[in-house]
Protein backbone atom coordinates (compact mmCIF):
# COMPACT_ATOMS: atom_id res chain seq x y z
CA UNK A 1 0.00 0.00 0.00
CA UNK A 2 2.80 2.41 0.86
CA UNK A 3 4.31 1.72 -2.54
CA UNK A 4 1.05 2.58 -4.28
CA UNK A 5 0.59 5.71 -2.19
CA UNK A 6 4.09 6.93 -2.97
CA UNK A 7 3.68 6.29 -6.68
CA UNK A 8 0.31 8.02 -6.65
CA UNK A 9 1.72 11.18 -5.08
CA UNK A 10 4.60 11.19 -7.57
CA UNK A 11 2.05 10.88 -10.36
CA UNK A 12 0.06 13.88 -9.12
CA UNK A 13 3.20 15.99 -8.79
CA UNK A 14 4.31 15.04 -12.30
CA UNK A 15 0.91 15.96 -13.71
CA UNK A 16 1.06 19.38 -12.03
CA UNK A 17 4.64 19.92 -13.21
CA UNK A 18 3.87 18.97 -16.80
CA UNK A 19 0.76 21.15 -16.91
CA UNK A 20 2.72 24.03 -15.39
CA UNK A 21 5.54 23.73 -17.92
CA UNK A 22 3.11 23.60 -20.81
CA UNK A 23 1.18 26.58 -19.44
CA UNK A 24 4.31 28.68 -18.92
CA UNK A 25 5.66 27.71 -22.33
CA UNK A 26 2.52 28.99 -24.03
CA UNK A 27 2.32 32.07 -21.80
CA UNK A 28 5.81 33.35 -22.50
CA UNK A 29 5.88 33.00 -26.27
CA UNK A 30 5.81 36.30 -28.10
CA UNK A 31 2.42 37.32 -29.46
CA UNK A 32 -0.55 38.78 -27.66
CA UNK A 33 -3.59 36.48 -27.66
CA UNK A 34 -5.88 39.47 -27.21
CA UNK A 35 -4.35 41.17 -30.22
CA UNK A 36 -4.61 38.11 -32.41
CA UNK A 37 -8.21 37.63 -31.38
CA UNK A 38 -9.15 41.19 -32.26
CA UNK A 39 -7.06 41.21 -35.42
CA UNK A 40 -7.41 44.38 -37.47
CA UNK A 41 -10.17 45.85 -35.32
CA UNK A 42 -7.78 46.39 -32.46
CA UNK A 43 -7.81 49.77 -30.77
CA UNK A 44 -5.94 50.49 -27.58
CA UNK A 45 -9.10 50.61 -25.44
CA UNK A 46 -10.59 47.46 -26.91
CA UNK A 47 -7.30 45.65 -26.45
CA UNK A 48 -6.98 46.64 -22.82
CA UNK A 49 -10.59 45.68 -22.13
CA UNK A 50 -10.13 42.28 -23.74
CA UNK A 51 -6.86 41.67 -21.94
CA UNK A 52 -8.61 42.41 -18.67
CA UNK A 53 -11.51 40.14 -19.64
CA UNK A 54 -9.22 37.26 -20.63
CA UNK A 55 -7.31 37.68 -17.37
CA UNK A 56 -4.06 38.41 -19.19
CA UNK A 57 -3.15 41.21 -16.78
CA UNK A 58 -2.97 38.88 -13.80
CA UNK A 59 0.38 37.51 -12.60
CA UNK A 60 1.47 34.24 -14.21
CA UNK A 61 1.04 32.00 -11.18
CA UNK A 62 -2.47 33.24 -10.53
CA UNK A 63 -3.38 32.68 -14.18
CA UNK A 64 -2.01 29.15 -13.95
CA UNK A 65 -4.07 28.55 -10.80
CA UNK A 66 -7.30 29.69 -12.44
CA UNK A 67 -6.52 27.71 -15.56
CA UNK A 68 -5.67 24.43 -13.83
CA UNK A 69 -8.72 24.59 -11.56
CA UNK A 70 -10.87 25.30 -14.60
CA UNK A 71 -9.14 22.51 -16.48
CA UNK A 72 -10.15 19.84 -14.00
CA UNK A 73 -13.63 21.22 -13.44
CA UNK A 74 -14.38 21.08 -17.14
CA UNK A 75 -13.69 24.65 -18.23
CA UNK A 76 -10.71 24.51 -20.58
CA UNK A 77 -11.07 27.97 -21.99
CA UNK A 78 -12.34 29.19 -25.33
CA UNK A 79 -10.81 28.53 -28.71
CA UNK A 80 -9.48 31.71 -30.36
CA UNK A 81 -10.34 30.75 -33.87
CA UNK A 82 -13.67 28.96 -33.43
CA UNK A 83 -14.96 30.96 -30.48
CA UNK A 84 -16.35 27.83 -28.85
CA UNK A 85 -15.41 26.11 -25.58
CA UNK A 86 -12.31 23.93 -25.97
CA UNK A 87 -14.05 21.22 -23.99
CA UNK A 88 -16.77 20.82 -26.63
CA UNK A 89 -14.19 20.68 -29.40
CA UNK A 90 -12.24 17.93 -27.68
CA UNK A 91 -14.96 15.87 -26.10
CA UNK A 92 -16.67 14.50 -29.20
CA UNK A 93 -13.31 13.74 -30.86
CA UNK A 94 -11.96 11.91 -27.87
CA UNK A 95 -13.77 8.57 -28.49
CA UNK A 96 -12.20 8.42 -31.95
CA UNK A 97 -8.65 8.74 -30.70
CA UNK A 98 -9.32 6.42 -27.77
CA UNK A 99 -10.75 3.75 -30.09
CA UNK A 100 -7.74 4.06 -32.36
CA UNK A 101 -5.33 3.72 -29.45
CA UNK A 102 -7.09 0.90 -27.62
CA UNK A 103 -7.87 -1.11 -30.74
CA UNK A 104 -4.33 -1.01 -32.03
CA UNK A 105 -2.99 -1.80 -28.57
CA UNK A 106 -5.20 -4.89 -28.35
CA UNK A 107 -3.98 -5.96 -31.79
CA UNK A 108 -0.38 -5.55 -30.68
CA UNK A 109 -0.87 -7.64 -27.54
CA UNK A 110 -2.98 -10.29 -29.24
CA UNK A 111 -0.50 -10.87 -32.07
CA UNK A 112 2.90 -10.18 -30.60
CA UNK A 113 2.76 -12.23 -27.41
CA UNK A 114 1.80 -15.56 -29.01
CA UNK A 115 4.23 -14.86 -31.86
CA UNK A 116 7.03 -14.00 -29.46
CA UNK A 117 6.44 -17.22 -27.52
CA UNK A 118 6.32 -19.21 -30.73
CA UNK A 119 9.63 -17.85 -32.03
CA UNK A 120 11.33 -18.38 -28.66
CA UNK A 121 10.12 -21.98 -28.54
CA UNK A 122 11.25 -22.68 -32.08
CA UNK A 123 14.52 -20.87 -31.65
CA UNK A 124 16.93 -21.33 -34.55
CA UNK A 125 14.40 -23.12 -36.75
CA UNK A 126 13.37 -21.85 -40.17
CA UNK A 127 10.15 -20.24 -38.86
CA UNK A 128 12.10 -18.29 -36.25
CA UNK A 129 14.59 -17.06 -38.82
CA UNK A 130 11.88 -16.04 -41.27
CA UNK A 131 10.02 -14.11 -38.60
CA UNK A 132 13.29 -12.46 -37.53
CA UNK A 133 13.95 -11.11 -41.02
CA UNK A 134 10.32 -10.03 -41.49
CA UNK A 135 10.49 -8.29 -38.13
CA UNK A 136 13.54 -6.27 -39.12
CA UNK A 137 11.82 -5.06 -42.27
CA UNK A 138 8.42 -4.35 -40.72
CA UNK A 139 10.08 -2.38 -37.93
CA UNK A 140 11.57 -0.02 -40.48
CA UNK A 141 8.25 0.81 -42.17
CA UNK A 142 6.84 3.98 -40.64
CA UNK A 143 3.09 3.78 -39.91
CA UNK A 144 2.26 6.58 -42.33
CA UNK A 145 3.84 4.65 -45.17
CA UNK A 146 2.30 1.31 -44.22
CA UNK A 147 -0.98 3.26 -43.97
CA UNK A 148 -0.55 4.41 -47.56
CA UNK A 149 0.32 0.87 -48.70
CA UNK A 150 -2.73 -0.50 -46.86
CA UNK A 151 -4.95 2.13 -48.44
CA UNK A 152 -3.62 1.19 -51.86
CA UNK A 153 -3.90 -2.56 -51.36
CA UNK A 154 -7.03 -3.03 -49.28
CA UNK A 155 -8.83 0.18 -50.15
CA UNK A 156 -8.19 0.68 -53.84
CA UNK A 157 -7.28 -2.75 -55.17
CA UNK A 158 -9.33 -5.14 -53.00
CA UNK A 159 -11.95 -2.53 -52.08
CA UNK A 160 -12.35 -3.79 -48.52
CA UNK A 161 -12.93 -0.24 -47.29
CA UNK A 162 -13.50 3.18 -48.81
CA UNK A 163 -10.42 5.35 -48.37
CA UNK A 164 -11.44 8.63 -46.79
CA UNK A 165 -14.93 7.28 -46.15
CA UNK A 166 -14.79 7.77 -42.40
CA UNK A 167 -18.07 7.08 -40.59
CA UNK A 168 -18.54 8.80 -37.26
CA UNK A 169 -19.39 6.71 -34.21
CA UNK A 170 -22.47 8.86 -33.70
CA UNK A 171 -23.89 7.58 -36.99
CA UNK A 172 -23.09 3.89 -36.94
CA UNK A 173 -20.81 2.16 -34.47
CA UNK A 174 -20.19 -1.01 -36.57
CA UNK A 175 -19.26 1.04 -39.65
CA UNK A 176 -17.05 3.24 -37.51
CA UNK A 177 -15.23 0.24 -36.06
CA UNK A 178 -14.91 -1.37 -39.48
CA UNK A 179 -13.25 1.74 -40.85
CA UNK A 180 -10.89 1.90 -37.88
CA UNK A 181 -9.53 -1.63 -38.43
CA UNK A 182 -7.12 -0.65 -41.19
CA UNK A 183 -5.66 2.46 -39.51
CA UNK A 184 -5.15 0.31 -36.42
CA UNK A 185 -3.27 -2.31 -38.43
CA UNK A 186 -0.99 0.43 -39.78
CA UNK A 187 -0.30 1.65 -36.25
CA UNK A 188 0.14 -1.85 -34.84
CA UNK A 189 2.49 -3.40 -37.45
CA UNK A 190 5.85 -1.88 -36.47
CA UNK A 191 5.03 -2.15 -32.77
CA UNK A 192 4.15 -5.82 -33.15
CA UNK A 193 7.53 -6.42 -34.74
CA UNK A 194 9.33 -4.65 -31.89
CA UNK A 195 7.40 -6.48 -29.19
CA UNK A 196 7.96 -9.90 -30.77
CA UNK A 197 11.67 -9.22 -30.94
CA UNK A 198 11.85 -8.02 -27.35
CA UNK A 199 9.82 -10.92 -25.98
CA UNK A 200 11.90 -13.43 -27.90
CA UNK A 201 15.20 -11.99 -26.63
CA UNK A 202 13.82 -11.81 -23.12
CA UNK A 203 12.63 -15.43 -23.18
CA UNK A 204 15.89 -16.69 -24.65
CA UNK A 205 17.88 -14.84 -21.97
CA UNK A 206 15.62 -16.23 -19.29
CA UNK A 207 15.97 -19.82 -20.55
CA UNK A 208 19.72 -19.72 -19.80
CA UNK A 209 19.23 -18.96 -16.12
CA UNK A 210 19.85 -21.39 -13.28
CA UNK A 211 16.33 -21.55 -11.95
CA UNK A 212 15.15 -22.88 -15.29
CA UNK A 213 17.61 -25.76 -15.10
CA UNK A 214 16.52 -26.45 -11.54
CA UNK A 215 12.89 -26.45 -12.58
CA UNK A 216 13.66 -28.98 -15.32
CA UNK A 217 15.68 -31.19 -12.99
CA UNK A 218 12.77 -31.37 -10.61
CA UNK A 219 10.89 -33.15 -13.35
CA UNK A 220 8.74 -30.37 -14.76
CA UNK A 221 7.88 -30.79 -18.41
CA UNK A 222 8.78 -28.24 -21.06
CA UNK A 223 5.50 -26.37 -21.09
CA UNK A 224 5.31 -26.31 -17.31
CA UNK A 225 8.67 -24.60 -17.04
CA UNK A 226 7.92 -22.32 -19.93
CA UNK A 227 4.54 -21.03 -18.82
CA UNK A 228 4.89 -21.57 -15.09
CA UNK A 229 8.32 -20.03 -14.57
CA UNK A 230 9.98 -18.35 -17.51
CA UNK A 231 7.15 -16.42 -19.08
CA UNK A 232 6.38 -14.41 -15.97
CA UNK A 233 9.96 -13.22 -15.58
CA UNK A 234 10.40 -12.62 -19.26
CA UNK A 235 7.31 -10.42 -19.32
CA UNK A 236 8.82 -7.74 -17.04
CA UNK A 237 10.72 -5.80 -19.72
CA UNK A 238 7.84 -6.41 -22.14
CA UNK A 239 5.39 -4.74 -19.78
CA UNK A 240 7.55 -1.61 -19.58
CA UNK A 241 7.77 -1.61 -23.34
CA UNK A 242 4.01 -2.07 -23.81
CA UNK A 243 3.43 0.88 -21.48
CA UNK A 244 5.71 3.03 -23.60
CA UNK A 245 3.98 1.79 -26.72
CA UNK A 246 0.57 2.79 -25.43
CA UNK A 247 1.81 6.34 -24.90
CA UNK A 248 3.52 6.26 -28.26
CA UNK A 249 0.49 5.16 -30.26
CA UNK A 250 -1.67 7.80 -28.60
CA UNK A 251 0.79 10.41 -29.84
CA UNK A 252 1.40 8.61 -33.13
CA UNK A 253 -2.33 8.57 -33.85
CA UNK A 254 -1.93 12.23 -34.86
CA UNK A 255 -0.10 11.10 -37.98
CA UNK A 256 -2.21 8.07 -38.79
CA UNK A 257 -5.40 10.15 -38.50
CA UNK A 258 -3.98 12.33 -41.23
CA UNK A 259 -3.26 9.33 -43.49
CA UNK A 260 -6.76 7.87 -43.20
CA UNK A 261 -8.59 11.17 -43.04
CA UNK A 262 -9.96 10.59 -39.55
CA UNK A 263 -11.23 13.70 -37.76
CA UNK A 264 -9.85 12.88 -34.32
CA UNK A 265 -7.84 14.77 -31.72
CA UNK A 266 -4.77 14.86 -33.98
CA UNK A 267 -6.67 16.74 -36.64
CA UNK A 268 -7.73 19.50 -34.22
CA UNK A 269 -4.26 19.63 -32.75
CA UNK A 270 -2.69 20.18 -36.16
CA UNK A 271 -5.17 22.84 -37.31
CA UNK A 272 -4.84 24.56 -33.96
CA UNK A 273 -1.07 24.58 -34.23
CA UNK A 274 -1.20 26.18 -37.65
CA UNK A 275 -3.88 28.68 -36.49
CA UNK A 276 -1.89 29.43 -33.33
CA UNK A 277 -4.99 28.59 -31.37
CA UNK A 278 -3.13 28.10 -28.11
CA UNK A 279 -5.93 27.23 -25.63
CA UNK A 280 -6.79 24.22 -27.80
CA UNK A 281 -3.17 23.11 -28.29
CA UNK A 282 -2.51 23.55 -24.59
CA UNK A 283 -5.54 21.51 -23.53
CA UNK A 284 -4.84 18.62 -25.93
CA UNK A 285 -1.16 18.46 -25.02
CA UNK A 286 -1.91 18.45 -21.30
CA UNK A 287 -4.56 15.75 -21.74
CA UNK A 288 -2.19 13.56 -23.74
CA UNK A 289 0.47 14.22 -21.12
CA UNK A 290 -1.86 13.16 -18.32
CA UNK A 291 -2.72 10.04 -20.28
CA UNK A 292 0.98 9.17 -20.60
CA UNK A 293 1.63 9.79 -16.90
CA UNK A 294 -1.34 7.69 -15.80
CA UNK A 295 -0.17 4.86 -18.06
CA UNK A 296 3.24 4.98 -16.43
CA UNK A 297 1.58 4.79 -13.04
CA UNK A 298 -0.38 1.70 -14.11
CA UNK A 299 2.83 0.10 -15.43
CA UNK A 300 4.44 0.66 -12.03
CA UNK A 301 1.49 -1.05 -10.35
CA UNK A 302 1.64 -3.95 -12.79
CA UNK A 303 5.30 -4.44 -11.97
CA UNK A 304 4.38 -4.96 -8.39
CA UNK A 305 1.94 -7.68 -9.39
CA UNK A 306 4.33 -9.48 -11.74
CA UNK A 307 7.45 -9.04 -9.65
CA UNK A 308 6.90 -8.62 -5.91
CA UNK A 309 10.66 -8.15 -5.46
CA UNK A 310 10.29 -4.60 -6.80
CA UNK A 311 10.77 -2.04 -4.14
Amino acid at each position, binding site marked *: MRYIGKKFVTMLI*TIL*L*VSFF*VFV*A*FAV*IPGDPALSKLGTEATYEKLEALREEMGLNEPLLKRYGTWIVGFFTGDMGTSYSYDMPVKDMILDKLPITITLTVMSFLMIVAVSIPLGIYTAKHQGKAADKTIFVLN*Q*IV*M*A*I*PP*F*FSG*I*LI*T*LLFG*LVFKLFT*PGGFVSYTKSIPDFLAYMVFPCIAVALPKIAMTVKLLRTSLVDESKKDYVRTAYSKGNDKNGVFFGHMLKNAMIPVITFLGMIL*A*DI*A*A*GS*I*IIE*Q*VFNIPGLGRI*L*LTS*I*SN*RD*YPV*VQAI*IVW*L*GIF*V*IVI*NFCVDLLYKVVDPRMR
Partner: protein
Amino acid sequence: MTIKKKPNYNFIIGSILTGLIVALALVSLVYTPYDPDAMDAANKFAGISLKHPMGCDNFGRDIFSRVMEGTKNTLFVALGTVAIGTVFGILLGAFTGYFGGILDEILMRINDAIFAFPSILLALVIVSLLGSGKYNVMIALGIAFIPSFARIVRAEFLKNRELDYVKSARLMGAGSLRIMFVHILPNTFSVLASSVMIGFNNAVLAEAGMSFLGIGVQPPDASLGRMLSEAQTYLFSTPSYAFFPGLVIILMVLGFSLLSEGISQKSV
Protein backbone atom coordinates in the same frame (compact mmCIF):
# COMPACT_ATOMS: atom_id res chain seq x y z
CA MET B 1 42.27 -22.76 -30.20
CA THR B 2 40.74 -20.80 -33.00
CA ILE B 3 37.51 -19.02 -32.43
CA LYS B 4 35.34 -19.19 -35.47
CA LYS B 5 33.90 -15.76 -35.92
CA LYS B 6 30.48 -15.47 -37.42
CA PRO B 7 30.39 -12.58 -39.84
CA ASN B 8 28.55 -9.59 -38.41
CA TYR B 9 25.80 -9.43 -41.05
CA ASN B 10 23.95 -6.67 -39.23
CA PHE B 11 26.99 -4.43 -39.42
CA ILE B 12 27.80 -5.28 -43.03
CA ILE B 13 24.31 -4.84 -44.44
CA GLY B 14 23.71 -1.78 -42.27
CA SER B 15 26.90 -0.12 -43.48
CA ILE B 16 26.08 -0.83 -47.10
CA LEU B 17 22.55 0.58 -46.85
CA THR B 18 23.62 3.64 -44.89
CA GLY B 19 26.56 4.16 -47.21
CA LEU B 20 24.31 4.10 -50.27
CA ILE B 21 21.83 6.54 -48.74
CA VAL B 22 24.56 8.94 -47.61
CA ALA B 23 26.14 8.72 -51.05
CA LEU B 24 22.78 9.54 -52.65
CA ALA B 25 22.47 12.60 -50.41
CA LEU B 26 26.05 13.72 -51.06
CA VAL B 27 25.67 13.37 -54.82
CA SER B 28 22.53 15.49 -54.67
CA LEU B 29 24.66 18.35 -53.36
CA VAL B 30 26.48 18.61 -56.67
CA TYR B 31 24.31 16.79 -59.17
CA THR B 32 20.72 15.78 -59.68
CA PRO B 33 19.51 14.44 -63.04
CA TYR B 34 16.97 17.28 -63.26
CA ASP B 35 16.36 20.42 -61.26
CA PRO B 36 14.23 18.99 -58.41
CA ASP B 37 11.91 22.00 -58.49
CA ALA B 38 11.64 22.40 -62.25
CA MET B 39 8.08 21.86 -63.40
CA ASP B 40 7.38 20.36 -66.78
CA ALA B 41 3.72 20.27 -67.74
CA ALA B 42 4.36 17.87 -70.62
CA ASN B 43 5.61 15.20 -68.22
CA LYS B 44 2.83 15.31 -65.64
CA PHE B 45 2.55 11.85 -64.06
CA ALA B 46 5.02 10.48 -66.59
CA GLY B 47 5.58 6.79 -65.91
CA ILE B 48 8.80 5.04 -65.10
CA SER B 49 11.19 5.37 -68.02
CA LEU B 50 14.88 5.60 -68.76
CA LYS B 51 14.65 9.38 -68.71
CA HIS B 52 12.71 9.45 -65.44
CA PRO B 53 13.64 6.28 -63.50
CA MET B 54 10.97 6.93 -60.84
CA GLY B 55 8.51 8.83 -63.02
CA CYS B 56 7.21 12.36 -62.54
CA ASP B 57 4.84 13.96 -60.05
CA ASN B 58 1.71 16.10 -60.44
CA PHE B 59 3.78 19.11 -61.56
CA GLY B 60 5.93 17.03 -63.89
CA ARG B 61 8.91 17.24 -61.55
CA ASP B 62 11.37 14.35 -61.75
CA ILE B 63 10.69 12.13 -58.72
CA PHE B 64 14.19 10.65 -58.67
CA SER B 65 15.75 14.11 -58.37
CA ARG B 66 13.26 15.03 -55.66
CA VAL B 67 13.95 11.81 -53.77
CA MET B 68 17.67 12.65 -53.84
CA GLU B 69 16.96 16.16 -52.61
CA GLY B 70 14.54 14.86 -49.97
CA THR B 71 17.06 12.30 -48.73
CA LYS B 72 19.55 15.11 -48.30
CA ASN B 73 17.05 17.23 -46.35
CA THR B 74 15.95 14.36 -44.14
CA LEU B 75 19.54 13.38 -43.38
CA PHE B 76 20.43 17.00 -42.71
CA VAL B 77 17.63 17.38 -40.15
CA ALA B 78 18.52 14.02 -38.61
CA LEU B 79 22.17 15.05 -38.35
CA GLY B 80 21.27 18.29 -36.60
CA THR B 81 18.83 16.52 -34.30
CA VAL B 82 21.31 13.87 -33.27
CA ALA B 83 24.05 16.48 -32.85
CA ILE B 84 21.91 18.55 -30.47
CA GLY B 85 20.78 15.44 -28.63
CA THR B 86 24.27 13.98 -28.19
CA VAL B 87 26.14 17.16 -27.29
CA PHE B 88 23.65 18.24 -24.62
CA GLY B 89 23.01 14.66 -23.60
CA ILE B 90 26.74 14.08 -23.04
CA LEU B 91 27.14 17.30 -21.06
CA LEU B 92 24.10 16.61 -18.91
CA GLY B 93 24.84 12.92 -18.43
CA ALA B 94 28.53 13.52 -17.70
CA PHE B 95 27.95 16.13 -15.00
CA THR B 96 25.04 14.36 -13.31
CA GLY B 97 26.70 10.95 -13.49
CA TYR B 98 30.12 12.11 -12.32
CA PHE B 99 29.12 14.47 -9.54
CA GLY B 100 25.81 12.95 -8.44
CA GLY B 101 24.13 14.65 -5.51
CA ILE B 102 21.09 16.86 -5.40
CA LEU B 103 21.62 18.36 -8.87
CA ASP B 104 21.60 14.83 -10.25
CA GLU B 105 18.33 14.04 -8.45
CA ILE B 106 16.56 17.13 -9.75
CA LEU B 107 17.83 16.90 -13.32
CA MET B 108 17.06 13.20 -13.56
CA ARG B 109 13.50 13.69 -12.31
CA ILE B 110 12.96 16.32 -15.00
CA ASN B 111 14.69 14.03 -17.46
CA ASP B 112 12.34 11.17 -16.57
CA ALA B 113 9.30 13.39 -16.98
CA ILE B 114 10.46 14.46 -20.46
CA PHE B 115 11.52 10.94 -21.37
CA ALA B 116 8.05 9.61 -20.58
CA PHE B 117 6.62 12.07 -23.06
CA PRO B 118 6.44 10.69 -26.61
CA SER B 119 9.06 12.59 -28.59
CA ILE B 120 6.70 13.46 -31.44
CA LEU B 121 4.37 15.15 -28.96
CA LEU B 122 7.17 17.12 -27.38
CA ALA B 123 8.40 18.13 -30.81
CA LEU B 124 4.87 19.27 -31.73
CA VAL B 125 4.74 21.49 -28.62
CA ILE B 126 8.07 23.05 -29.46
CA VAL B 127 7.16 23.52 -33.11
CA SER B 128 3.90 25.20 -32.12
CA LEU B 129 5.95 27.57 -29.97
CA LEU B 130 8.71 28.27 -32.49
CA GLY B 131 6.76 27.89 -35.72
CA SER B 132 7.30 25.24 -38.38
CA GLY B 133 10.30 24.87 -40.68
CA LYS B 134 13.40 22.81 -41.15
CA TYR B 135 15.53 24.40 -38.43
CA ASN B 136 12.77 24.57 -35.83
CA VAL B 137 12.00 20.89 -36.33
CA MET B 138 15.69 20.19 -35.85
CA ILE B 139 15.71 22.09 -32.54
CA ALA B 140 12.42 20.55 -31.43
CA LEU B 141 13.49 16.97 -32.13
CA GLY B 142 16.95 17.67 -30.74
CA ILE B 143 15.49 18.77 -27.42
CA ALA B 144 13.19 15.76 -27.41
CA PHE B 145 16.21 13.49 -27.91
CA ILE B 146 18.40 14.92 -25.12
CA PRO B 147 16.92 12.84 -22.23
CA SER B 148 17.58 9.45 -23.80
CA PHE B 149 21.22 10.31 -24.51
CA ALA B 150 21.68 11.90 -21.09
CA ARG B 151 20.39 8.76 -19.47
CA ILE B 152 22.79 6.46 -21.32
CA VAL B 153 25.82 8.70 -20.73
CA ARG B 154 24.93 9.12 -17.06
CA ALA B 155 24.77 5.36 -16.54
CA GLU B 156 28.19 4.94 -18.16
CA PHE B 157 29.73 7.70 -16.04
CA LEU B 158 28.25 6.24 -12.86
CA LYS B 159 29.85 2.92 -13.72
CA ASN B 160 33.22 4.31 -14.75
CA ARG B 161 33.80 6.83 -11.97
CA GLU B 162 34.41 4.01 -9.47
CA LEU B 163 36.93 2.20 -11.67
CA ASP B 164 40.63 2.07 -10.90
CA TYR B 165 41.80 4.04 -13.89
CA VAL B 166 39.71 7.01 -12.80
CA LYS B 167 41.01 6.76 -9.27
CA SER B 168 44.63 6.68 -10.44
CA ALA B 169 44.02 9.62 -12.75
CA ARG B 170 42.65 11.52 -9.77
CA LEU B 171 45.70 10.57 -7.69
CA MET B 172 47.93 11.94 -10.39
CA GLY B 173 46.22 15.25 -9.94
CA ALA B 174 43.93 15.34 -12.99
CA GLY B 175 41.05 17.81 -12.61
CA SER B 176 37.42 16.72 -12.76
CA LEU B 177 36.86 18.13 -16.23
CA ARG B 178 39.95 16.37 -17.55
CA ILE B 179 38.87 13.07 -16.01
CA MET B 180 35.37 13.43 -17.37
CA PHE B 181 36.14 14.34 -20.94
CA VAL B 182 39.65 13.00 -21.56
CA HIS B 183 39.49 9.78 -19.56
CA ILE B 184 35.92 8.61 -19.12
CA LEU B 185 34.25 9.89 -22.26
CA PRO B 186 36.33 7.86 -24.75
CA ASN B 187 35.41 4.73 -22.77
CA THR B 188 31.73 5.36 -23.41
CA PHE B 189 32.13 5.59 -27.19
CA SER B 190 31.13 2.02 -28.01
CA VAL B 191 27.85 2.36 -26.13
CA LEU B 192 27.37 5.86 -27.46
CA ALA B 193 27.98 4.85 -31.09
CA SER B 194 25.19 2.32 -30.97
CA SER B 195 22.75 4.79 -29.44
CA VAL B 196 23.73 7.49 -31.92
CA MET B 197 22.66 5.10 -34.69
CA ILE B 198 19.35 4.47 -32.94
CA GLY B 199 19.10 8.23 -32.63
CA PHE B 200 19.49 8.58 -36.41
CA ASN B 201 16.90 5.87 -36.89
CA ASN B 202 14.38 7.72 -34.71
CA ALA B 203 15.28 11.12 -36.10
CA VAL B 204 14.66 10.00 -39.68
CA LEU B 205 11.28 8.55 -38.70
CA ALA B 206 10.35 11.66 -36.72
CA GLU B 207 11.44 14.09 -39.42
CA ALA B 208 9.55 12.18 -42.08
CA GLY B 209 6.51 12.17 -39.81
CA MET B 210 6.69 15.90 -39.13
CA SER B 211 7.16 16.70 -42.82
CA PHE B 212 4.26 14.38 -43.60
CA LEU B 213 2.14 16.53 -41.29
CA GLY B 214 3.37 19.61 -43.14
CA ILE B 215 5.34 21.16 -40.29
CA GLY B 216 8.84 20.05 -41.24
CA VAL B 217 10.71 21.01 -44.38
CA GLN B 218 8.68 23.66 -46.17
CA PRO B 219 7.86 23.68 -49.90
CA PRO B 220 9.22 24.03 -52.49
CA ASP B 221 12.08 22.16 -50.77
CA ALA B 222 11.67 18.44 -51.35
CA SER B 223 11.23 16.18 -48.35
CA LEU B 224 10.47 12.47 -48.28
CA GLY B 225 7.65 12.85 -45.75
CA ARG B 226 6.00 15.70 -47.63
CA MET B 227 6.26 13.82 -50.94
CA LEU B 228 4.37 10.94 -49.32
CA SER B 229 1.56 13.17 -48.14
CA GLU B 230 1.33 14.85 -51.56
CA ALA B 231 1.39 11.47 -53.28
CA GLN B 232 -1.62 10.26 -51.30
CA THR B 233 -3.99 12.23 -53.52
CA TYR B 234 -2.73 10.46 -56.62
CA LEU B 235 -2.33 7.08 -55.00
CA PHE B 236 -4.51 5.11 -57.39
CA SER B 237 -3.33 6.69 -60.63
CA THR B 238 0.39 7.03 -59.79
CA PRO B 239 1.35 4.66 -56.96
CA SER B 240 5.04 5.05 -57.83
CA TYR B 241 4.92 8.64 -56.55
CA ALA B 242 4.28 7.32 -53.02
CA PHE B 243 6.29 4.14 -53.41
CA PHE B 244 9.79 5.51 -53.98
CA PRO B 245 10.00 8.11 -51.20
CA GLY B 246 8.57 5.50 -48.82
CA LEU B 247 11.09 2.90 -49.97
CA VAL B 248 13.99 5.27 -49.35
CA ILE B 249 12.70 6.02 -45.83
CA ILE B 250 12.49 2.29 -45.11
CA LEU B 251 16.01 1.63 -46.41
CA MET B 252 17.35 4.53 -44.39
CA VAL B 253 15.71 3.37 -41.17
CA LEU B 254 16.70 -0.24 -41.82
CA GLY B 255 20.30 0.79 -42.44
CA PHE B 256 20.60 2.73 -39.22
CA SER B 257 18.92 0.11 -37.07
CA LEU B 258 21.05 -2.72 -38.47
CA LEU B 259 24.15 -0.60 -38.00
CA SER B 260 23.21 0.04 -34.40
CA GLU B 261 22.72 -3.66 -33.75
CA GLY B 262 25.92 -4.48 -35.55
CA ILE B 263 27.90 -2.03 -33.44
CA SER B 264 26.55 -3.35 -30.15
CA GLN B 265 27.26 -6.90 -31.35
CA LYS B 266 30.84 -5.92 -32.11
CA SER B 267 31.52 -4.39 -28.72
CA VAL B 268 30.29 -7.43 -26.82
